[in-house]
Structure formats: C-alpha cells, structure tokens
C-alpha cells in the first residue's frame, strides 16, 4: 500500500514538473523577447494577446503544425534521435532539484522534489554532458557542411567546460560534505557558500554560458558564420526543441543548481530571515534573477572565436577551479 502511495506521488509530481517545464519554457521565450526588446528600446511582442502574452501559444501552434521536412540525404535515425537527446537530459535534471523544504497540507506530508538522491550532483553533471551527444548527432546527421562544423564546434566547447564545471562544483560539496542537493542547501543555513567559493562561482557562470550557448560563448548558432549552426536542417517541432532545450530549460535548470550550490537554495538571505515568505518563493526569486543575469549578458557582449573559447576553458577556467578547491580546503581547516 505504501509503495502505491509513493508511486502515485512521484507520477503526479513528475507530471507537474514536466508540464510546468514546458509551459515555463514557452513563457521564458516571451520573457527573453520582452527583455531583449526593452533593452533595445522597443516593446517586444505586444499585439498578440494582451501585452503579448499569447505569443508563445501562437509560436507553439505554428511550429507544431509546420510540415515535417526531412531531407532525403539525411541519416534518418540519428536525425530524429538528436533533438530528443538534446531535450530529454535537460528535463531529467529536474528530478533531483529541490524547490523548497517539505511542508504538510491537510495531513499529507509533501516533499517539493521528486527524489532526494545522495549523488544528485553527479546525476546532474551526467545528464548535462549527455546533451553533447544530441549536438554531435544533429551536426553529423544533417549531412551538410554548416551543421557539421557547428556541431563539432559546440562539442569541443562543451567538453572543455564540462571539466571546468565538474571541478568548480567540488568546492561547495567539500563544504557541505555530501552530494545530495538537499543537504547542501541545509548546510548553508548560516552562511552561503558563495563567500568562500567566489572563484568557483565565476567559473560556473562562464561554464553555464558556454553550456547553453549564450554569448560570449554563443558558437553553435552564430548566424553570421554558420547559417543556423547544427539546427540548420531542422524544421517544425524538431527545430523547436533545440532552442527550447538549450536556451531556456537548460539555462533555467543550471541556474537553479547554481542557486542551490552558491546562494543557499531556499534559505532566505541573511538579513531578511524574518519575512513570512515561504521557501519556494525565495528559491524562484533567486533563480529568476540569475536567469535575467544570463539574458543581460547575452544581449550585450560580442562573441569569442571557437579556439579562443576552448583556450579560455583549459587555460583559465580549469586552473581557477583547482585554485578554488585549494582555497576552500584552507577555509575548512581554519573555520572547521
């Protein structure tokens, strides 16, 4: 009986998460277009629905009913697999992200996360690096020159920044003493982990920019050089999945992990502890601000060349991450 309860609970929660993520990603596109518009002194989507609120629905309807054009010289299996390989891992990371502390409603004790793995960080990193395959398959399967170059470029960048991201996350794990995200958040009751790990925070910011393909590491979809990067040959919903997965869901999820690692998950900021705001709201406010920061960077800076990006990954980011581990070790010895 108890097994049935947990299964039903998990199914409902995962359904809420996936549908929420789909709708959320759609409205994140609207948020980005509105933000980009106002940064450029223009209003962004305005006439489709009140203040453009129906714009994502119109985009989704159009993209779904587009003709599903598959060029004949394409490796059909890999072509279909690529968009799923890029999309599914991004959503799977949600399984381990705790959105708030457990609370009870009419006697039912609800935990606002699907599972509390004790190796949550490893799982998140693993799913993150799975999306590299989606990128390479897309580049290879499209059987044309531009996607091939775009795919290989993105793969080179991703590998460089996966390593740097992995080492950068070691700092907070050492301080919290466990891999589970929930325990990391609980370990940050009194002091957030950003204070000792400032170097790791910089490395994580740059790695997320590279992972999700945001300027200044926006290599895969550099319109100017490669027409559409590896998504040149995709049409309809297969095309829709790529930016949805990469620019919006991955950015949202990775900024959620950064908030958990460095900004103390759902703990209120040190001075505003007394405000009666529930944990879930604190967490979403922090994730929202970090997401806006990524948008802000995306719409301002020019773009590096590919070899400069990989050079920064291996020559700057990796040493910074290792230095950060060294600093955190000293911090732990001094402050225990």
């Amino acid at each position, binding site marked *: 009986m108890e097994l049935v309860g947990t299964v039903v609970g998990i199914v409902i929660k995962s359904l809420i998460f996936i549908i929420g993520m789909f709708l959320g990603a759609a409205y994140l596109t609207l948020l980005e277009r509105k933000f980009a518009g106002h940064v450029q002194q223009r209003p962004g989507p305005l006439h489709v629905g009140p203040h453009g609120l129906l714009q994502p629905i119109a985009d989704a309807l159009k993209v779904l009913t587009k003709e599903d054009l598959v060029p004949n010289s394409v490796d059909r299996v890999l072509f279909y697999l690529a968009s799923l390989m890029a999309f599914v891992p991004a959503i799977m990371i949600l399984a381990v992200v705790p959105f708030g502390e457990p609370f009870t409603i009419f006697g039912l004790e609800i935990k606002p996360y699907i599972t509390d793995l004790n190796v949550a960080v490893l799982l998140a990193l693993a799913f993150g690096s799975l999306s590299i395959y989606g990128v390479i398959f897309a580049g290879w399967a499209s059987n044309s020159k531009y996607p091939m*170059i775009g795919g290989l470029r993105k793969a080179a960048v991703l590998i460089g920044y996966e390593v740097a991201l992995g080492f950068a996350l070691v700092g907070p794990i050492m301080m919290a003493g466990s891999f589970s995200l929930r325990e990391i958040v609980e370990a940050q009751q009194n002091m957030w982990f950003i204070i000792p790990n400032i170097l790791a925070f910089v490395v994580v910011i740059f790695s997320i920019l590279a992972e999700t393909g945001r300027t200044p590491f926006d290599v895969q979809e550099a319109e*100017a050089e*490669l*027409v559409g990067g590896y998504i040149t040959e995709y049409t309809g919903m297969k095309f829709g999945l790529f930016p949805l997965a990469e620019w919006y869901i991955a950015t949202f999820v990775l900024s959620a992990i950064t908030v958990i690692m460095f900004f103390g998950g759902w703990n209120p900021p040190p001075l505003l502890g007394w405000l009666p705001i529930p944990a879930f709201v604190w967490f979403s406010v922090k994730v929202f601000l970090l997401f806006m920061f990524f948008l802000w960077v995306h719409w301002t800076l*020019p773009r*590096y060349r590919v070899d400069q990006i990989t050079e920064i990954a291996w020559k700057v980011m990796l040493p910074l991450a290792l230095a950060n581990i060294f600093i955190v070790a000293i911090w732990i010895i001094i402050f225990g």
Partner: protein
Amino acid sequence: MHLWIDGQDLDQIKKSFDSVEISRSENFVSVQINKEKLLELLSFLKDKLGYKMFIDFFCMDFPVQSPRFQGVYLLFNPEKMRRVAVKCWAEGDSLPSATKLWKGIKWAEREAWDMFGVRFEGHENLVRMFMWETYQHHPLRKDFPLRGHGEVYLPPLSGEESPAHNYSPYHTALPTMEDLEITQKKRLPEKKAQIVLNWGPLHPGTHGTIWFLFDMEGEEVKECDIILGQLHRGVEKIAENITYTQFIPYTDRMDYISALCSQVAYVNAVEKHLGVEPTEKAKYIRTMMCELQRINSHLLWLGTYALDLGALTIFLYTFREREKIMDIIEGIAGIRLNSTYIRIGGVAKDLPEGALDVIEHFLNDFPQRLKEYETILTKNRVWLRRNVDVGVITREDVYSYGLTGAVARASGVPYDVRMFQPTDAYGDVDFDVPLGKVGDSYDRYLVRVEEMRQSVRIIKQCVKVLRQMEGESYINTEHPFVLPTLDQVFNSIEAMVKDFNLRIYGEKLPEGEIYLSGENPRGELGFYINSKGEGRPYRLRVRSGAFYNLQVFTELIKGRTVADAVVLLGSLDPVVGETDR
C-alpha cells in the same frame, strides 16, 4: 590644384619611349602606347617615376576602328599627388596581363574579359567576373542590345495573362544550377584542401549577395576566391542609353548606403566637364548632406559589424541613430534612402523650414550616443581579442591592390580625395583625417569611428554658414545646360522651351573625357565619362571603392578560420550594389 601629371614627368616618358602619343586636356592627361611596349611603360612609371598606386583599369569599345577595344590604366603617385592615364589598343582582342606589377588588376582584367571579351595573356585564372561561365555574349559591347535576346518563354506563375502594359512573357535565358556549378568549379580549378565550403550568396553573414569559396583544412582556410555578380544589373550599360540628369537616380542604387555621396561625386564630374559652377549655398548644402550620409553609412557599418560579432544590441542602437538621419533626409529630399536630391548645377529643392534646427539638435545629441557605443565596444576584451592583429594590411598592399578610403587610412596611407581634390565646400571647412598605425581590423574600426566625429565637426561649420544664407538661390539656372526650376517653367515660355530641349536632347557635354572622384565612405568612387558631344555619355565607367577593397580579402583570409572571415568582411565593409554595378 592641378591633379594630373605635369610636364616634367611627361618629358622623361617622351625621352625613353619614342612611339608614344600624349593628349593633355584640363581634366584628363593620357599617354597612348602600342601593345608591345605597354608593360615596359607601366613598370617604368611604377618604379622610376613613382606612380606606384593602382587606381583603375577598364576597357572601351570603338566598333568602327580596326583594333576594336582600348584598355585604360589609371595610376597615382602618392608622393607628388599626381594622376596619369595610360591607353593601349588591344590588337587581336588581347592585352598583356599586368597582374605582376599590381595585384589589384586581377579582378579588373576579369571584368574586362567578361564585359568586352578582351583576353589577357599571363592572367593566372581568367574567368568571368560577373556573369556565369556558360554565358555566351559579352554584354558591354556596343552591338549587344540593352535587354539582351529575349528567347525564353517565362509567364508569371500567378495566372494573370498580361498584368501591365509594358509586360512581355519573353525573357532572356536564366542560368541553371549546372551553370552555377561550372562557374564554381572554374573558380578553384584544383581542390587543394579537405572540403570546399560555399559561403553562399544568400547568406545572413555576408553583407548582401557575395559568394565566397573557401578551400578549408578543418576550420583553417587554405585558398579562397570570391564570385561576384549576384547583383550585377548592368548600370554602366544603362548609362549609355539615358541622359546625364536621368542617370542621377541610378547612382543612388549603386552604393545604396551612401546614396548622396555617390550623387555628389557623379554630378561634380559632369559639372566640371560641362563648366557649370553651382551656387555657394548649393555647395554647402551638398557638403553637409554628404557628411550626414557618411555618418549614416558608418553607423550601418558599425551596426552590421557588431551584429556579425554577436553584439546584437549595438545593431539596434545604431539603427535608432540612423532613423534620425533618415528622418532628416526624408524631410529635405522626400525619400529616406535613395534620395535623388542633387541636380546638375545645385540641388533639387531648397532646405525646408526647421531643417537646420533639427540638424543642430541631432549634432548636440549624437556625440554622447557615440560615446555609449565606444564604452560597450572599444575596451571590451572580447572585441579586442576578435579584432586586434586580424587582417593586417601593409602600405605595399594598399598601393598594389588600389585600396582607398578608411581601409587605406587605417594602414597609415594618407589617401583622402577630399584632401588633394576638394570639391564643393570641402576647401573652406577644416577637419582632420584620422590615420592608423598597424592596419588591422581594430585600426579600421577606430578610424571609422573617428571619421564620424570629424563629420559632426564639418556639419557644424556648414550649418553655421547656411544660417546666414537664408534666401539665396540653391541652383544656378543661368547656365544654358542647367534645368530651370518649376516656378520658372510656370511663369516664362523661354524657361519652358529650355526645359523641353534639355529633357529631350540631354545636356550636350563637350567632346572629350574626364575622370573625377569623390570620397565615399567606402573608398574613392570615381566617374570616367567619355562623351562624343551628344546628350548621352559614350562610355561611363564607375570606379568602385568597395570592388577593389574586397579584393584584398582573398589575401588576408589565408591561414585564418571561418570565424575571422566574418571579422575581415565586416572591416572591409563592401556594398554589393557598388561592387557589382
């Protein structure tokens, strides 16, 4: 300021070459020689007399004479600031190729082969410059009809039988994809590296329809060639069938980003040959509008350059400033982009009320906006990493490729047409000419931004002078070959008769030829007009700055990656309407 070769050099040429004819006129000094001694004379001019900068090479068709085609070389002496033209008849429709003396002549000779059918011995890869390889005819010959031979039946697909009175379902032959593949194969005869990447004509990265062929090893480009002609509309062929006033709108459509500067350059050439002196107010209006258009053109360059490098917001900020300048031009001329505003003898309409206040408002607000772009870009480390030491152009390259404009000035060559040949009011305003030291993309960026500031300075002085010239006439209609204004036509029969004659028979330019150029934002835009005395030019050659600046791209891209191709193309700033004419 006498600009052409003077007596002292001519005597040296006469001494060392006996069979040479020299024809001197006020606007054009040419040395004619036969085909055998041509290369000898050219290398003599280049090494001994210091005429080492290549300006232009083109052909002319005289169907009545026996050696039908005549090649004209234009050279420039950077120290003495003198020009010379060398003419040579092409016996047997062929000329010796001068690519060993100047690398810039390669494309000019390809264009001469494409348009006239003149062969060049010793040219490394003589292919058609604009038309596709399997095209049978040579269009710029006098016996080729303007519309071509309409032999293909191409009805409209929208089902209307005859939509307009000037519609004919017959059309000239269109190329097929096989023709274009042959054109591409001919360009890179043997494939050296791994793959040949078509940075295709309809590509968001190229500014307009330029077709790049990269022979690439991984991401590194080993060999590159550029196919132009995707916007070749045959403007020079049109020029031979319409009068001088009717050609003014076509000069806008060539370099459509700096329309007014092209009109001013063309009209100055016609006026100098006709002997018309525009009124004082017209001169200042022209200089002011030219400088406004220069800021407009540099803003578009900055916007698309930053867009190609990823800074999307700069593109929209520069377009907000461009909207302001286009509002001014729309208010003064009537249309935002291709404003046919300059006329022979002055300008089409007077400045409307409130124009000078609006321009002053723009001038007070613009430098602050320029500082905004600079803070985002100039000291940005990503911008520095992408621009410093990318595509370094040496002074020798400038001379041998014939580079002009900001590209030449960024490498330290002080070549500015406004300096040594000031037309309109450039002689009376003072401004600086910015020069770079290293000659890489970063220098070209800084030179163009500095040029925008200098243009603001020039416009300020023009506005101050124009404030006092409130009621003066804006066009000098006393001259017999200048069109009268509408009020004069309404009120006097003689003006109406003069207007009818000039519209029907065109302005009768005196016999002879002239080459005069203006400083366009994209380099020196020169007009060579050879007139036989009727109302239509016999041959009108447009020396396009962007055409020769783009040629150095194939040299700079060797050994760099595709991502740098974007930076180099952006810093050379070509406009396809002008390169393809």
